[in-house]
């Protein structure tokens, strides 16, 4: 509750900043301070202290897990904004508006981590999406940005329609919007007379797949990530997607076993096709940005494992994965922002020109590829573990592994460009402080690569 209230207030404050305070610097600082407050308030709730404490009438339910995940999101957002301050300011002399949108998005995210009612799910998703449509189109003069915005908007609202139909079906079958007490008892499985219910679940499933960009609902992802301003892409690809996943799991983990084997079948279909599209197509990209877009689809494929079944691995894994993946992606995009163009060639010889930057980029890429000593390895390992613990066949794991090997293919193309190709990287000059910020992220990833449990130990005590 705190998070939702505070973030809304902060959003409003930022709005007014846009004509109260003119200098970017102060706006940036205010945003950071605000985020700090947000984190504090959330931690406060985690320790049982509320701003206003009242009964949400079963609309929201604050679990330790949800609140903790919130905190992590806020922290990551903090890093993100801290890193990309002046970059955001580039679009507009008024960065404050964007900060406001960020806060609204965070509000939506914290709803998605705590909703207890499909109505809240719906509203949460909308609060999350609408600002994104705008952020995508933020580069108003840029046709790519416009196009991306329109595509995203149209498909987004279409998927909203699908989601609503699904919710309606569920309501029709159960007569309530409360989902979290399993509507299907595991023993009953998939009863004939409940066709309409499972149809509803399936439609919701499809809509959520759209939000987390899983195949075959991924089509918006490459275009939107590619068209949107890089700085916002990195936000979309990380926190938003992660929040979507949390919501996804909250809906389905309680159900999944009840849905019978066809559920596993459907999920396997989605997982495999997501991995396939994401990894295979990423291999042939010439633009790093687009490659990362596809790779994010592939990563989504891995995160979907958490849906396969409820287990401590799944819970820990999704948290770890969300954090690691977000950090790494923010890092890579942070480097990409500094490039004059998005092609692989732009990175040629970066190792010579700026060894430190090249090094951190390598760490990020390793983490994305899941190479040991970076957090990515354990993230992937936990996911595979969750998959196996949930009783998936080895075949699925082996497929996942094969695609993981394919992913090395395209991530390392960038490493090769940086280290083994001689050339002059075409980049804006990078301030020292910026590099150090990236280095910090890299170090975080390395720590997670050796002690992953620091992320989720807090879930237990």
């Amino acid at each position, binding site marked *: 509750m705190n998070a939702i209230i505070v973030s809304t207030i902060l959003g409003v404050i930022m709005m007014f900043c846009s004509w109260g305070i003119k200098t970017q610097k102060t706006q940036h600082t205010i945003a950071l301070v605000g985020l700090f407050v947000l984190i504090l308030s959330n931690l406060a709730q985690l320790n049982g202290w509320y701003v206003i404490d009242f009964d949400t009438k079963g609309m929201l339910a604050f679990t330790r897990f949800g609140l903790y995940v919130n905190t992590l999101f806020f922290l990551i957002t903090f890093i993100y904004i801290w890193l990309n301050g002046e970059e955001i300011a580039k679009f507009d002399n008024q960065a404050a508006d964007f900060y406001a949108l960020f806060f609204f998005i965070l509000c939506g995210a914290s709803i998605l981590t705590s909703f207890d009612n499909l109505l809240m799910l719906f509203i949460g998703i909308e609060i999350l999406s609408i600002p994104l449509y*705008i952020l995508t189109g933020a580069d108003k003069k840029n046709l790519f940005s416009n196009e991306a915005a329109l595509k995203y908007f149209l498909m987004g609202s279409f998927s909203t329609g699908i989601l609503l139909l699904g919710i309606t079906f569920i309501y029709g079958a159960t007569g309530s919007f409360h989902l979290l007490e399993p509507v299907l008892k595991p023993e009953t499985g998939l009863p004939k007379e*409940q066709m309409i219910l499972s149809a509803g679940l399936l439609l919701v499933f499809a809509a959520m797949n759209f939000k987390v960009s899983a195949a075959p609902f991924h089509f918006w992802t490459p275009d939107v990530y590619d068209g949107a301003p890089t700085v916002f892409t990195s936000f979309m690809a990380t926190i938003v997607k992660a929040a979507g996943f949390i919501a996804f799991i909250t809906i389905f983990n309680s159900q999944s076993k009840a849905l019978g084997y066809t559920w596993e079948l459907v999920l396997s279909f989605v997982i495999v096709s997501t991995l396939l599209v994401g990894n295979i197509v990423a291999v042939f990209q010439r633009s790093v940005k687009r490659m990362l877009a596809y790779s994010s689809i592939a990563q989504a494929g891995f995160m979907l494992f958490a849906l396969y079944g409820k287990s401590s691995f799944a819970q820990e894994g999704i948290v770890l994965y969300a954090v690691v993946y977000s950090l790494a992606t923010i890092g890579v995009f942070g480097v990409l922002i500094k490039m004059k163009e998005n092609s692989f060639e732009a990175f040629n010889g970066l190792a010579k020109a700026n060894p430190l930057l090249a090094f951190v980029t390598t760490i990020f890429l390793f983490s994305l590829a899941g190479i040991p000593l970076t957090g990515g390895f354990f993230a992937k390992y936990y996911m595979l573990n969750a998959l196996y613990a949930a009783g998936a066949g080895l075949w699925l794991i082996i497929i996942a592994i094969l695609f993981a090997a394919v992913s090395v293919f395209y991530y390392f193309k960038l490493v090769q460009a940086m280290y083994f190709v001689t050339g002059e990287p075409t980049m804006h000059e990078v301030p020292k402080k910026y590099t150090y910020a990236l280095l910090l992220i890299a170090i975080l990833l390395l720590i997670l690569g050796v002690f992953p449990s620091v992320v989720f130990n807090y879930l237990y005590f």
Partner: protein
Amino acid sequence: MNTLEILFYALSALAIISAVMVLVSKNPIHSVLWLILVFFAISGHYILLNAQFLAIVNIIVYAGAIMVLFLFVMMLMNVKKDKEPQKQLWVKLTGVIAGGSFLTLLIALVKQNTSFQGRDVLLKEGSIGLIHPLGQALFTDYVVPFEISSVLFLSAMVGAVIIGKK
């Protein structure tokens, strides 16, 4: 076949026909008008279901505000009659087939679904559609979403500002 049923069929026919017209009419303006007609038909259904409040809101918000907004935008970019180039036929066909199969699939499911059999919709009677219980529910049970939806508007507003700014 009492009056209610007649009304139901009539309104349904109206809704479907005008919905189809939205699709087929070349001129965007026309399709807007057809859509408004659909909304009116739906509002009629609401009244039939004795959900007056929603009926009114539907007229005001949709047929009124939103559609006017649409028309307004149309005017703004003065899209003339069949300015819109058509998609190739086969694309349309696939679209229709896809949508149709989607429909048939869902209908097949509903038909299989036994839990709905013999369950009726209460027409005319029932107080829940009236403004009083709705208002009560909205400000007691549903106050949280009600408050939160304001965030939606805030963000929409900010967005409009950002995009609207030259």
